[in-house]
């Protein structure tokens, strides 16, 4: 599914790399706030759902070729994170919802 379609359907906020949304093909999502867990278990082109809002998130997302980072609970990314995401060309998205709700909505998009 195209990232642009997901952003529209779930009414997500886009904090960076809006111009890339059309070209990113998403295969699913992974929800975790532990960086090693994501390093070990997340798959290429998944959206990473998290409350972690620091630069290391981008390092992990880039090494694992993730599709995007989705910040929950209305968290706004800090400027460092946005700058890094532009360098790495990985969009940062946001939602007001907590992890459980937004994960469920994404689950429905992919598996129902």
């Amino acid at each position, binding site marked *: 599914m195209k990232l642009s379609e997901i952003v529209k359907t779930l009414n997500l906020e886009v904090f960076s790399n809006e111009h890339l949304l059309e070209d990113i093909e998403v295969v699913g999502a992974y929800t975790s706030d*532990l*960086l*090693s*867990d994501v*390093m*070990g278990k997340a798959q290429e082109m998944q959206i990473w759902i998290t409350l972690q809002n*620091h*630069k290391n998130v981008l390092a*992990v997302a880039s*090494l694992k070729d993730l599709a995007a980072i989705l910040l929950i609970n209305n968290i706004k990314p800090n400027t460092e994170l946005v700058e890094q995401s532009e360098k790495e060309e990985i969009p940062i998205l946001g939602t007001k919802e907590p992890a459980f709700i937004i994960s469920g909505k994404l689950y429905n998009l992919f598996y129902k």
Partner: protein
Amino acid sequence: MNFNYKIKGGDFSAAGRASSEIKKILKKLNVNPKVIKRIVVALYEAEVNVVAHADKGSINAEIDSEKIRITVVDEGPGIADIDLAMTEGFSTASSKVREMGFGAGMGLPNMKKNADILNIKSKVGQGTMVELITFFKS
């Protein structure tokens, strides 16, 4: 080919720099992307461990046609019981480090799962040497 990087203890903003460089190099060499992933997952965890647990360290990566051999050497507290440290969930990370989402005690297990060969040598009060070897074709 030989590559060297330095790591500063406590400097989380630089963690992952070497992994990212190595990833680019291996991509250029047309190494299988799945193998590249395994290599950088292991290296990232080793980098983060120096940042989180040691004072300073250096990384050396030796690449030939068959494999990559990475050694991560640090000056720091060392590991008293390596078997215990290898246990999933074991961590002595500070609460500040944990809040950032590190310190889940999954780093060494991730290295073991992802590298073909993992060797650790450590002297308490002096430092730790981690060797990660991965073959490009299995």
